């Protein structure tokens, strides 16, 4: 039995006619790192909200099919139970700051206070989590005085400190400059290496190719393609359907037509492209 089990999942937001997710069937194993790609309006964020329990518990609307994470069924659970298993981080780092705390240390402790962890344990866990994500030196700063990249790492740490079994990330770097992006991906990579189950929505495909185990391509609320990162990300179906694809892939595809790319597999990252063109 897979760790995440989506069966015939279809969902409509309230006050809308067309479903945002249609007949999704997806199994994800424990410890797997799955990336989700898709054009705007493909239902990526809705998929994240579903895994995190906010669809349908927060957004209401109409959900059919079944969603199971770690053996629990979404429709039979309440949101406050569900969030203990699933952590969620999303695009805007500023909006993820609780606002209830004056320092980063307190901010990270917020979730643990809410779920009633004893004081001494909170201190140990917050300290530990900050060291893991490399933000120990920010402990006494105000969360509002930080850069976007730092805020997003604080948001991630605030989730990780709660020790979720599944981490759901919805374009965590979309509002970040290259430095912020590298900082945030550094943390995500570490989580992946530690064997945490991660579902990541991301349009920066070069990063995905580096460390996803599997890629799911969504289009119009349905799964279009699913498989190994390099196979999915270089598939012609993607460019035909308006997905954002790596510039190295398109360059190599052009080169292939002119016989300049000899390998069968097209590249996604710069390194793969350099290597391929060398041979």
């Amino acid at each position, binding site marked *: 039995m897979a760790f995440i089990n989506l069966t015939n999942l279809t969902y409509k937001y309230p006050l809308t006619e067309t479903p945002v997710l249609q007949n999704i069937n997806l199994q994800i194993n424990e410890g797997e790192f799955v990336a989700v790609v898709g054009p705007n309006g493909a239902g990526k964020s809705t998929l994240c909200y579903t895994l995190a329990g*906010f669809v349908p518990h927060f957004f209401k609307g109409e959900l059919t099919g079944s969603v199971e994470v770690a053996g629990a069924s979404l429709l039979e659970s309440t949101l406050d139970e569900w*969030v203990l298993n699933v952590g969620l981080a*999303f695009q805007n780092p500023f909006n993820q700051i609780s606002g*209830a705390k004056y320092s980063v240390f*307190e901010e990270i*402790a917020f979730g643990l*206070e*809410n779920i009633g962890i004893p*004081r001494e344990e909170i201190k140990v866990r917050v300290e530990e989590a900050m060291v893991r994500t490399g933000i120990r030196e920010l402990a006494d700063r105000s969360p*509002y005085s930080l850069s976007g990249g730092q805020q997003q790492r604080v948001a991630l740490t605030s989730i990780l400190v709660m020790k979720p079994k599944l981490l759901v990330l919805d374009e965590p770097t979309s509002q970040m400059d290259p430095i912020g992006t590298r900082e945030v991906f550094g943390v995500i990579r570490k989580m992946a290496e530690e064997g945490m189950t991660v579902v990541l929505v991301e349009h920066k495909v070069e990063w995905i190719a580096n460390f996803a185990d599997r890629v799911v391509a969504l289009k119009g609320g349905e799964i279009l393609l699913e498989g190994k990162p390099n196979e999915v990300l270089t598939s012609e179906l993607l460019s035909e359907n308006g997905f954002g694809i790596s510039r190295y892939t398109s360059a190599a595809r052009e080169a292939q037509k002119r016989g300049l790319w000899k390998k069968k597999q097209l590249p996604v990252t710069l390194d793969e492209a350099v290597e391929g063109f060398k041979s």
Partner: protein
Amino acid sequence: MNPNRSFFVPVDSPLHRLNPLTKLTFVFAMILPAFLSVPELAPILAIPVFLAAFIGRVQKPYLNLLLKLILPTITFMFVMQSVFLPGGETILFMLGPFDVTQEAMRSAFFTVTRIFVMVSSFALLLLTTHPSELMSDLTQRGLPGQFAYVIISTLQILPQMQAKAQTIIAAQRSRGLDTESTFLKRAGSLVPLVSPLVFGSLAEVEERAIAIEARGFTSKKTKTSLHEISDTSFDKGLRWILVILILASVALRIWLS
């Protein structure tokens, strides 16, 4: 004002070390007798508040507050009430068509001393207690955690929104906003000033709600607190004494009437 936008002065003093609830009880032990007991008590109550400011080593910001915030208001009130309050027979002097009576002045004096005691004792609490410390303590005593969330969150959002307002006002001024022109023009300029502020901040509400709910905001478990706020037996004793003082002052009023 410090960056956290509160009156709090971060120094170490016996008053700072007191439990926040004890200081809150002190505030009410000043205010309730001032308003509920005999009027003559109000001026006397100003003395312990004043002394406490010295114990709390906040005498300078405290006096500063008195001069800038409280004195102008109550002086104005005192003059207005002395002149305009009706009744009274002992006319002290005439001010144009208005008679200033001894009774009106007496009444005005007691009203402003009450307000003085109320405002200055609250000011003292805020000078010596950080808002988050007060809220943690009250939460640990059973106040629902959401109240603490609202208070602290507002204290953090407000300066941000005021800064945004400043930016928008500056931008609108450079485009010809006139804060001095006719009434209709000034009223008309309200909408372009206010709407970016309001809609921008409302748009953040949904994501912030999701973010805090993802971190157990609605958890049914009993919340714990990172900070331990000390509550000594001295605090407990002091609170009892203050409560007895409140009751005694009200009893005094009933006994005298």
